[in-house]
């Protein structure tokens, strides 16, 4: 089907798609330069870096899981009040009243567990492939921070259902923080908004889980991916090591 030329050459269309349809060199170049895909990716990639054994796609899967978690998390926020005991009642609502509520909750919980595992595996892949070596030192450090943020994100989300499982898991964890000399008790107080896991803690964990930590992760993921490109693309197995020298 051919779109009418008057539509394609209209001001509105051209404000969205900058390049015209005639196969001029200018249009060809603009089609490439304006593609979002090619803004995020280089125009060409190494064939070897597409092989599964190079990355096992673990970084990509982490990002996909984060996207799934964002989508289902936003929908869950429509049904959730971060207050006691309403939070727990909302879980029951999801289970028994909301259409596909339980499915929605499952599609947030299982990807969350999966993300912890996949991000950890991603770190192992990068380590065993020596992909942290210069010039990628700092990207590795960003990755370590992203791993910690993933754990924190999962941990703050763990409290939100406000059932016995959530409450005591978070109590055990925050009691560990208390063991830290000097800084422990004030950090715990700051995290919980008090001395016990209560209504203030639920609200703080909610804000951390839904706003602060996701924003931090998004910013660092952007930096992480940008640096992958700036540092010379994907690093593969033994890039600077034995296999590069043709010994393996």
């Amino acid at each position: 089907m051919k779109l009418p030329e008057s539509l394609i050459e209209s001001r509105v269309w051209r404000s969205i798609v900058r390049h015209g349809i005639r196969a001029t060199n200018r249009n060809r170049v603009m089609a490439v330069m304006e593609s979002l895909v090619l803004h995020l990716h280089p125009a060409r990639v190494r064939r070897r870096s597409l092989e599964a054994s190079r990355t096992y796609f673990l970084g990509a899967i982490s990002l996909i899981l984060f996207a799934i978690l964002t989508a289902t998390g936003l929908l869950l926020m429509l049904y959730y009040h971060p207050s006691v005991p309403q939070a727990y009642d909302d879980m029951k609502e999801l289970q028994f009243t909301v259409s596909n509520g339980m499915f929605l909750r499952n599609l947030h919980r299982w990807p969350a567990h999966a993300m912890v595992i996949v991000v950890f595996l991603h770190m192992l892949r990068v380590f065993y492939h020596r992909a942290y070596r210069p010039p990628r030192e700092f990207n590795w450090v960003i990755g370590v921070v992203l791993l910690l943020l993933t754990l924190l994100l999962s941990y703050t989300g763990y409290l939100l259902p406000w059932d016995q499982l959530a409450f005591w898991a978070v109590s055990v964890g925050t009691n560990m923080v208390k063991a830290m000399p000097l800084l422990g008790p004030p950090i715990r107080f700051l995290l919980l908004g008090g001395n016990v896991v209560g209504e203030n803690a639920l609200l703080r964990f909610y804000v951390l889980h839904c706003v602060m930590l996701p924003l931090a992760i998004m910013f660092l993921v952007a930096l992480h991916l940008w640096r992958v490109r700036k540092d010379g693309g994907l690093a593969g197995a033994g890039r600077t090591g034995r296999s590069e020298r043709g010994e393996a």
Partner: protein
Amino acid sequence: MTEYRLEPSSDATATPKRLAILRPETAARVLVDRDETVMTVPHLLLREIILIQICVVALAVLSLFFDSPLEGIADPTNTPNPAKAPWYFLGLQELLHYFPPVVAGVLIPGLVVMAMVVIPYFRTNLEDRGFLEGSPRRQMTLLTMFTVAIVAFLAAWRVWAVMVPTLVLYSAMVLPSLPPCPPSWRRRLVRVTLSDWIMTWFVAVAVILTLIGTFFRGPGWKWIWPWQGGVSL
């Protein structure tokens, strides 16, 4: 920075009439840059789209068949026995069973995070020399002394869950220098670098501690079998 190397080449397609001046530590990068490339659209994009679909479908199917747990409403006066942290912290909680809280909850995780951050700044062993390549006897003596110290420490604290994987790893490390080792194994094991051994040890310990904390700990943090107690994730 100071050391430059002149690389003469007769291959005009690879080095067309120019001098390639390489610093030794960037040589590998230049090599890799000669790899064959393909267009991002469609080769990479297609893989990404397929990957997204596989992930979404797999997790949707999982979510249809397995429901998230939900226990009774939070009750600060009713402590469950055992009270467990989320599964990814159960390795640390298992350590809490052996060590005082400052060690298990602060010192060990703090050191692990610090060690991970500084990993890329150690510019040692860039040529990936295997642990037993070079002077195996000296390496072996150091390794054995180090292992004996660690095992003695772990035995003093009765941390069997860490001691057993430590000894298994040690056996794998010394295996190449024992006569009954098959030559194909020896060739592989000799090449494994020290950093890989350390990381593998860390991962093995972390996984075993987490599995024990998740599946093998019941009331009073006593040992139970997985089929004796339920697991809530």
